[in-house]
């Protein structure tokens, strides 16, 4: 029966051409949307690698003040640590978690070249963000004396640079690895877990003035106001801005989710249009094929056979369209378009194919049931 339906649809290909183009176009749009969704969902399920709930990013801007900056930077650190409401403080570069800033650099090891996110941090970073190490240790001030700068890398960087080698103590691009952490997705859950290198901040660095302050449980906004007030009094002419990471995370999520939601809404309208079109075409097709329905009933088809025939026909039609769509879609994983993992595209293809089959089935169900109720004697007599 399937072969019969394939032949029937193939022989009607000119009649169905526009419908097939419509399904094909819907598949491609769905594939695009599904790629975005699969990419973001697969990122989302990867652990973030750190905690952010009670952490504030306090940004100090010295404006026109250029006097004794190293001392002032140090004083800020000591003052922040002295607050009883503060659990730990860490200083880091402007690309702090959930910020808009990014720093990338290429690093090399044994002819392997890897692009990695660089974060300049201090010895208290892992403790402040509650980041467990999977190998080695976090760097300390004692590590600064050596020939190579101490770094901690994440597991992605380890896999990319060292493959099966133990990275501890290894040197790459003038950095010496002292520890390995698991994940680090600084831009939030929707970020790809990419290679990351944590470089230790040395005493000469006076330009990075972001302090990550981890507060004790129960600390409220009163403390935030007091902290800003006291710091502003202490550092005349400086600006102090507090960004709870929990708020920055929401902003980062919006940056990812808003385009996806807009695309989803546009795509939903498109699919509704396609569904209505399909529904109309199927209704018309059934009305035009009453004689055929009557004949099939007369020569042995049950009402159920007739109903399933129309559902199966639309599946065949969708299969033809999807085969053409797949010719395009498979180019994405094969040619590594947008540098996404092949699994994302394969997942997106599967999702888009599933939605198309679901949609056409839904559209075919009612007209096909109507077809099944056509009385054979009446349908044959009409001709």
């Amino acid at each position, binding site marked *: *029966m399937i*072969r*019969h339906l394939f*032949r*029937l649809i193939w*022989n*009607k290909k000119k009649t169905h051409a526009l419908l097939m183009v419509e399904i094909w176009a819907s598949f491609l749009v769905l594939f695009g949307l599904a790629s975005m969704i699969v990419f973001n969902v697969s990122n989302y399920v990867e652990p973030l690698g750190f905690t952010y709930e009670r952490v504030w990013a306090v940004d100090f801007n010295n404006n026109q003040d250029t006097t004794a900056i190293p001392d002032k930077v140090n004083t800020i650190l000591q003052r922040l640590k002295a607050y009883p409401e503060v659990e730990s403080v860490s200083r880091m570069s402007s690309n702090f978690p959930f910020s808009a800033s990014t720093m990338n650099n290429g690093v090399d090891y044994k002819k392997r070249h890897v692009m990695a996110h660089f974060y300049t941090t201090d010895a208290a970073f892992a403790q402040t963000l509650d980041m467990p190490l999977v190998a080695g240790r976090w760097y300390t001030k004692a590590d600064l004396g050596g020939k190579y700068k101490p770094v901690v890398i994440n597991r992605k960087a380890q896999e990319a640079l060292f493959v099966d080698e133990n990275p501890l103590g290894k040197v790459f691009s003038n950095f010496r690895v002292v520890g390995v952490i698991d994940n680090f997705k600084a831009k939030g859950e929707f970020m790809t877990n990419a290679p990351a290198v944590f470089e230790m901040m040395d005493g000469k660095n006076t330009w990075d003035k972001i302090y990550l302050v981890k507060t004790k449980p129960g600390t409220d906004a009163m403390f935030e106001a007091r902290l800003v007030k006291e710091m502003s009094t202490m550092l005349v002419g400086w600006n102090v801005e507090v960004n709870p990471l929990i708020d920055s995370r929401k902003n980062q999520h919006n940056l990812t989710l808003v385009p996806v939601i807009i695309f989803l809404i546009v795509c939903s309208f498109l699919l509704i249009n396609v569904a209505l079109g399909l529904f109309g075409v199927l209704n018309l097709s059934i009305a035009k094929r009453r*004689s*055929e329905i*009557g*004949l*099939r*009933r*007369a*020569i*042995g*088809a*049950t*009402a*159920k*056979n007739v109903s399933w025939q129309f559902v199966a026909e639309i599946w065949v039609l969708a299969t033809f369209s999807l085969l053409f769509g797949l010719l395009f879609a498979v180019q994405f994983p094969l040619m590594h378009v947008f540098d996404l993992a092949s699994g994302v595209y394969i997942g997106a293809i599967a999702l888009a194919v599933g939605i198309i089959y679901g949609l056409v089935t839904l559209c075919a169900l009612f007209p096909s049931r109507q077809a099944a109720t056509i*009385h*054979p*004697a009446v349908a*044959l*007599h009409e*001709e």
Partner: protein
Amino acid sequence: MISLTNIEKVYRTSTIETLALNNINLHIGQGEFASIMGPSGCGKSTLLNIIGLLDAPSKGSISVGGQPVTSYSDQEMARLRNQRLGFIFQSFHLINDLSVLDNVEIPLLYRKQISAAQRRQMAQEALERVGLSNRVKHFPKQLSGGQKQRVAIARAIVGRPEIILADEPTGNLDSVMGNEILSILQGLNNDGATIVMVTHDEAMAKKTHRLIRLFDGTMVGDTTLTLC
């Protein structure tokens, strides 16, 4: 073979009731070639639809091969139509988007036990039987009316049914073509098929074994004919 007892068929709308068949009692024996005649609207096609289980009577009972079938489910009726009955229609009812061979194969698609290769072979044999083995890849639009009806006959006989029901099979054809079709039907009957044919054509009817006359839904005549 087929027995109709006290058959009545009433068509009801919200405003009107039409009695299409009234108290029909009929037995068609195995190997018979019966024709049903009567003026337009007298219930000939309705009677044929009831005999072919395409329509249910309002009253009365039908039995095929001694088995009462009135209470059969849709599935049982479909199986019976598929395996024991073959239909030929005035307007052929061929599917224009399928080749001649594919059209003939259709009844066999509803028999799960027949393989694709067997289907092809049986369809080819049926087409040979009606003299159309050289037209298997043609489409209905490429055929004349007589050829179309021969394809329809091949489709009716492909499943080797015991009973062939023909609803004005020569109605859309000229007399030469009509005679050709009737010859094919006579040949099938000679080979043992039971045939019930609705016709308007007295000359055609007289070439069958039995003539049943209907008038206003009532059977007004049932004559056994002697062929010259």
